[in-house]
Every structure is written in C-alpha cells, then in structure tokens.
C-alpha cells in the first residue's frame, strides 16, 4: 500500500508541473503589456518600467517560467499588489476558510447523495424514489448562488434561524457553535448540485449492481434484504460511485466561489474574484495554482481509497 501511494504521488509530479505551465500560459494571454494592464491606463512610464522589472517581465518567457516555478518551490508566490502582503500568506489564510466550507459540503453531499441514491434504488418506482428523483432534479438545476440567496431570504430574513452571512459573528462569536450556525446555509447551498449528481449516479450504480449474480447468491444464502442492499450491493456500487465523488469534490471546491460571494465567506474564491477585479494577477496566479494542486492531491487520496475498496486494483 505504501508503495502504491508513493507511486501515485510520483505520477502527480508531471500533472502538477503541467498545471503550472497551463496557468503560466493563460497568464501570458494578457492582451498588451501586463504592467499597463495591472497599473491601468494612467500609469506613468517609469512605474510601468519598474513593475516590469519587478515582475521579471523583461526576461524571455521560458526563463520567466522557471524563475516563477523556482520561487514557488521556495514558498515564494510573490507579493500581492492590492493587499501588500505575500501571496502565500493570504492564500493560506483564505484557504482554511474555503476548506471548512468545501469540506463540510463535500461530506454532506457524499452522505446525502449516496443515501438518497440507495433509498431510491431500493424503492425503485415507489413513492420515495419518485420524491427523491424530483428533489434531485430541482437540486441539479438550481444555480447554487440563487439557492443561497433564497435560503438567506427564508432562513435568515423571514425565519431568523440563522445569520445572514459571514463566518463568525462580529461581536462575541468565534466559537464552534457560532461557526456551525454560520456554516449551515452556505454548506447546504454549495452541496445541493453535487448531492443531486451523486444521488443520480448512486441510484443507477445500485440498480446496475442489484441485477448482478452475486446479489442473487447473497439472497440464496438467506442474507437479509437490508444487508443485501447495504453490504453486498452498496459495497460493489461504491466502486462506481467513488470516482464520481472525486469529480464532484472539484465542483464543490471551485463552486465555493459563488457561495463565498453570496454569504460573504472569507475564502479563497472570494479572494480570487476580488483579485481579478483589482487586476492583482500574482494573487490570481498563486491562488489558482495552489487550489488546483490541492485538488490533484485530493484525487490521489480518492485513488487510494478506491484501491482499498477494490482488491482487484493492482497496488
């Protein structure tokens, strides 16, 4: 197992390098002179020249890439112009907030989605199945930002159950119950679409597995139907469900952008949008590379989980 994890980690190195190349290429798409783009049309030529020098933009492109990569490997992601602090510090601070939000959402959508899919499949064409199918259909069609806004209207404004936005109360907050109260709505809104997608996938995977011969064998042994579904069928269906979880994790992680804006959540997504609007390109560049790299590592964890679940995968 240790060898397998090491192998997967090593295979991630070219992917991570590829990510830096892609981000670097995208950033070099900036039309015209980047320094002018950053400083705006009214910048003095001296300022533009100075910034060009600071960014290393007077070097050839390939050299610039390697300098950037080398600095990043040293933990130097550059300095944010709009915030006047190191990019990495800002990212790490913001990413922990995003991780809380996206992590909670991911756990929510995994549990709810699989549960809904299993119940749906076990009661195929029954009332529960129809109800779940209907809710799932709405879940995957409603834009998360709109859902979030409607939740604010209902739960925060009308019912006054939960705070409107933010991560902690301004006065007297900061403890775990406070965090949970602030986290509930954004986490639910963020998980809605992924829950729907996972539920659908889980339902069809379960239906597929329930027709397999080994399910009939379990029944022929006299295993109780509840156990047939939860142990035999679900276990086998998980092999198909886990990759979907990995993909959905990516949607949850990046979809957090909308939710962070709607709920004023101090995460990396909101940071990115602000950075784009203020043309703080080093912050964007660093943030995108950082989040994408985290996602690549997460997917390795998914692969490892898959290999633990399915002994047929060669480790």
């Amino acid at each position: 197992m240790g060898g397998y994890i090491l192998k997967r980690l090593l295979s991630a190195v070219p992917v991570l390098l590829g990510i830096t190349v892609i981000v670097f290429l995208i950033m070099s798409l900036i039309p015209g002179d980047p320094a002018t783009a950053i400083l705006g049309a009214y910048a003095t030529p001296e300022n533009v020249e100075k910034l060009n020098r600071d960014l290393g933009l007077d070097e050839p492109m390939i050299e610039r890439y390697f300098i950037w990569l080398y600095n990043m490997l040293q933990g130097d992601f550059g300095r944010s112009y709009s915030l006047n602090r190191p990019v990495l510090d800002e990212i790490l601070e913001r990413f922990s907030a995003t991780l809380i939000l996206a992590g909670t959402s991911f756990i929510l959508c995994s549990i709810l989605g699989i549960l809904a899919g299993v119940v749906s499949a076990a009661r195929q064409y029954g009332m529960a199945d129809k109800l779940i199918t209907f809710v799932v259909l709405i879940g995957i069609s409603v834009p998360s930002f709109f859902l979030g806004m409607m939740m604010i209207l209902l739960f925060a404004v009308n019912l006054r159950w939960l705070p409107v936005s933010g991560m902690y109360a301004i006065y007297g907050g900061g403890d775990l119950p406070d965090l949970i109260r602030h986290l509930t709505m954004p986490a639910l809104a963020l998980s809605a679409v992924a829950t729907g997608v996972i539920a659908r996938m889980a339902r069809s995977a379960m239906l597929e597995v329930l027709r397999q011969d080994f399910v009939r064998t379990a029944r022929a042994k006299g295993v109780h139907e509840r156990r047939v579904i939860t142990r035999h069928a679900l276990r086998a269906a998980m092999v198909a469900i886990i990759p979907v979880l990995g993909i959905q994790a990516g949607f949850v992680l990046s979809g957090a952008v909308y939710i962070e804006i709607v709920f004023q959540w101090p995460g990396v997504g909101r940071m990115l949008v602000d950075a784009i609007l203020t043309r703080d390109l080093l912050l964007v560049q660093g943030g995108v590379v950082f989040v994408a790299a985290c996602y690549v590592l997460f997917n390795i964890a998914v692969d490892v989980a898959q290999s633990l679940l399915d002994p047929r995968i060669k480790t």
Partner: protein
Amino acid sequence: MIAFLRRLFRNRLAGLGAVTFAAIVLFVVVTPLLPLPDPNATATADRFMRPFSEGHPLGTDHLGRDLLARLAAGTRLSLAVGVAAALIAATIGSAIGIVAGYFGGRIDNVIMRGVDMLMAFPYILLALAIVAALGPGLMNALIAVAAVNVPFFARNIRGITVGLAGREFVDAARLSGMGHTRIILSELLPNVLPVIVIAMSTTVGWMILETAGLSFLGLGSQPPQADLGSMLGEARSALITHPHTSVVPGLMIFFIVMSINLLGDGVRDALDPRLRSGALSRPRAMTEVKREDPVPAPTDDLLALQDLHTQFHVGDRVLRAVDGVSLTVAPGECLGIIGESGSGKSVTALSVMGLVASPPGLITGGAVRFRGEDLVGAPYERLRQARGDRVAYIFQDPLSTLHPLYRVGDQLAEAIRAHHKVAAKEARARAVALLRDVRIPNAESRLDDYPHEMSGGMRQRVGIAMALANEPDVIIADEPTTALDVTVQAQILSLLDDLRRDRGLAIVFITHDFGVVAQLCDRVAVMYAGRIVEEGPTGAVLNAPAHPYTRRLIACVPELGQGRRELAAIPGLPPTLDDLPAGCAFAPRCEKARPACSAAPIPLEGSGRRAVRCLYPETRPEEAA
C-alpha cells in the same frame, strides 16, 4: 429518427422539458415584437416597483428599469452566450478529439496528456484564470466557459474516433487514396456527429449556468448590458428589501437549466438501448406471486413442485418460462433436470426459493412445498430463513456469483451467520472446516483469498462449501460445472456425489448435458419449452428414451471410444415462449409429428415413475419400465 422522437416524448419528464424550453424560446422570440419599454431605460422615480404594477408586469429594478423587458433581453443574451459557448467547445473539442483518435500514436499521446492536465483543474477555477488574464467581459466569459469544456468533448470524441478509425470503411477509404482531411470529413465526422450532439445537449445547460455564474460574480457582462447572471448579481444588494428583483432572473435560470437537463436526460435515455427493453428494473427480494387458482394440497415429500407456473411479463408480452411443472425429490435422491437453454430449467430451479428476478418474473400458479409447507405463498422472512438453511443453491459461474470485493472466508461466514447466532471466530473456524470438506488444500490460508485470486475449480468448491454451510436438506445445483474445464468438471461432480452419499443430501441437478446426468442422477426430468416432456429413472430414460426430443437430445452427446457415431444436431430452434402452440411444442421440429400433435394439449402420461408427454412415443413407457 421518428422512433427516437416517439421514445423521447413517451418519457413524460423529457416532454415537460421540451415544452418548458419551447416556451422560453418563444418568450425570447416574441418579446421584441411586443411594445415593451427599453430594457436599459432608467427611471429612478419608479425604482423597485412590485410585480403586477401598472405598465410593469414584473415590476422594476433598482434603477427603475422594466424587469420584464430586462428579463427578455437577459434571457436572450444568456441563451445566446450559452449556446455559442457550447458550439465553440464542441467544435474545437471534437476537432481535437478526432485528430487525436484518427492519427493515434504520438500525436494522440501529446494531445491527451494536455487534455488530462486541463481536466486536473477544478472546472470553474480554470474559467476564473482565463477571465483573470483576458479581463472581465461577456465575450471573455464566453471564451473561458467554452475553453474549460473543450477537454470534455476532446476526450469523449477521441474515444469514439479510436473505435471507428480501426474499422473497415476507414481502411477502405485510405486504400482508395483519400487524403486524411477527406477521410476525417467524409467518413469519420458523420459517424461521430450524433455523439457530439448528445454531448452538447447534456452540457449546454451547464454552460448557460456557468456563464451566468461568471456574470453574477461581475466577471461577465458589464453594465448596462445584462444577462441573467448579472441581473441576479445586481439585484443581490437589494435581496432583503426587494426580493422580486432577484427571484425573477433566478427562476429563469432555474427553468432554463432544468428544461435542458430534462431534455438531455430524455435524449440520452431514448438512445440508450438498455432502457428501451426496461431491463434496468431492480429485482426484488423475492419473486412476485400472483396466484389465481387454488393452491394444490400438501404432500409429505421432502420437496415438491406442484403444477408450478412462472412467467415473465415484458411489456405486453407474456413469456411462459415454467408452464405447469410438477416434480418431487426424496431425501438423499439426485434428480436431474435437463434441457436446452431457454427450456425453463433454470427458472424452475430459481422459482423454488423465490429467486426469479422480479420484475419481470411472476409466479402465477402452483406451489413449491418443502416438507409440506408452501414456500411460494410464504412471507419474506419465512422464505429467507429457509434460503441457504434448508434449501441451498450452487450457481453456474462462480466468478460472477461470488461477491468480488469480499474474502471468501467472510462470504462463507456470512452464510453461516445468516442463520445461526455464532461468534465471528467460530464462524471462521467452521468456514475452514467447510473448505476442507470440499477438499481445498491449505484451507486456512485460502480463507483470506478474494474470488479473483482463485482458479475456476477452486471458486466452485467455495460455492459448494457455501451451499453446505448450514447442512441443508436439498441443494439445487444450477449448471454448476458448465463454466469449468472438463477435468475440473469431473472432480466437482465426484465431490458432489460423495457429499450426497455421506450426508444424505437431496440434489436437484440442472444441466444440458446427458453425460453429467448419467454420472450423477437417480432420476431425470427432460424439459422443453417450460414443460416436462419425459421423466423416469436415469438408466431407463437413457436406454430407451420415449419422447422424440429426448432421443434427439441423447444423440447430441458425443461419446468417447464409440467410434464414428454421427452427432445429430436438432434442426430448428426452440419456440418463443410467448407464442407456444396449443399442442406439443416440439412438433415443428419433430420428424414424427402428425396433425394431432399440434391440435390439443398433450398430458404427461405414464405408469409408476416413468412418464412421457407424447402421442407417438418411441417406446411405450409401460414397456420400458
């Protein structure tokens, strides 16, 4: 195409999606013709008018602009941008996919590596990076959304193209001297086009949603131009005081995406052949029972099938797989049931413990009695208790019938613990003993094997051990040796025979092979088209088959050392089970058939233990007995 559309609209949800989407398109097309105010005309005096106000059916926004007019303009823009993004992504992505799939080799390798890299990004993040570089704006948002969807198309289309590129018609085109461009355009493109269209129909909803999302973030359309996303984004600051300005564009995005999702699902389902036959139904815990005739009276046999009828209801068709089968099994006896595939022998076996997949299976009549108790009418819990405990099964292919993800030891222990409250440790000890009973060497270490780590013969031994786990009275073996090598087959048969003699087990042995019957069975029943056509002691049936079908079936078996004996295959095919003739089902394939054979049902007649369902039997059962 017409069949496809009919299937699409038979799906009510897809129909709903189509109607909703058509209504939205109609709304977008018709509104420019109506005398609506200019969507960008501000009137600060009329800010935040509520819906149903005079002159403003949906009210006004924070600048007093008419919401209906803005909704129409915004919807038009959102649809146009989403569809444009889908078209761009599909065109570029498919082109990349076709090139990679057609040329293969290094080109394919390099391109797909790049695609994999792009797919390693969380989706929206990549779009943000592109917008960051190009700057906010609707056009740039469109480019970003299209770009992040390119890998999806490239990968899908490449997969299809790789399959097509090796086909004869492409080779033929190449040999006829066509250039690469012409082959791609005239041979490959028409074949992958339907796939591209399906992929578009399932992703265009996402792309509309994503461009709206970027506009919502302020990175897409810039004021005063507004798509649905930026309408929602602008309305957000007034969410609490004037929610209608948010609800109007939000609901519109929701309806657009939902209708497209429903349509996309419908298109996919209509094209998925597995859904057409309704095959994706989940089999229930036990076979459904719908008996109308009175249940036959109990007998004191160990196991008795009494006038059993099992049918499959597929759409309007009723397949009579088991059509009035009666059999009895005595303790310690081995009964063979033999027939071609489709004769109903397996369905008969599965009906005993309610294991026929249902839907579509349905037991419509008769009874299965174990020591007099009717199992067909039994409630689920009673049936479950009997399964594996009193009557156990051995199935055909142990690779697919054992759970692939559990160790064989755990699967054996589960069989025991389904019926006996024993500790895990004891169950494991018993599992070792069971593996020894079926003569698996190194039983102890084999417990921790997964099925895929064992050979076919070993797996089937595990299957047999599992059936023996609770020392049942009857084992039903459904072609347990068919998937195995001949030498392994012989070992398994002798193992079963030994177990039967040692433990006084009754065995019902389902097979299509008379050689196996001769080796193992005391009695044999021959099935054809869901009915028993002949029954009797194995020796008597083998030496003097009474039914023409039995005779032909025996003639099919090659015998070693018997010199040049002609192998006679039976001409024709078994009848379809939803259209059985009134009389003998074998008559159309029978040389001796006369008009009377097809006229009326023929009873199973005989004396003692020998019986035949034939008007002109080869030998009179009375004589042979």
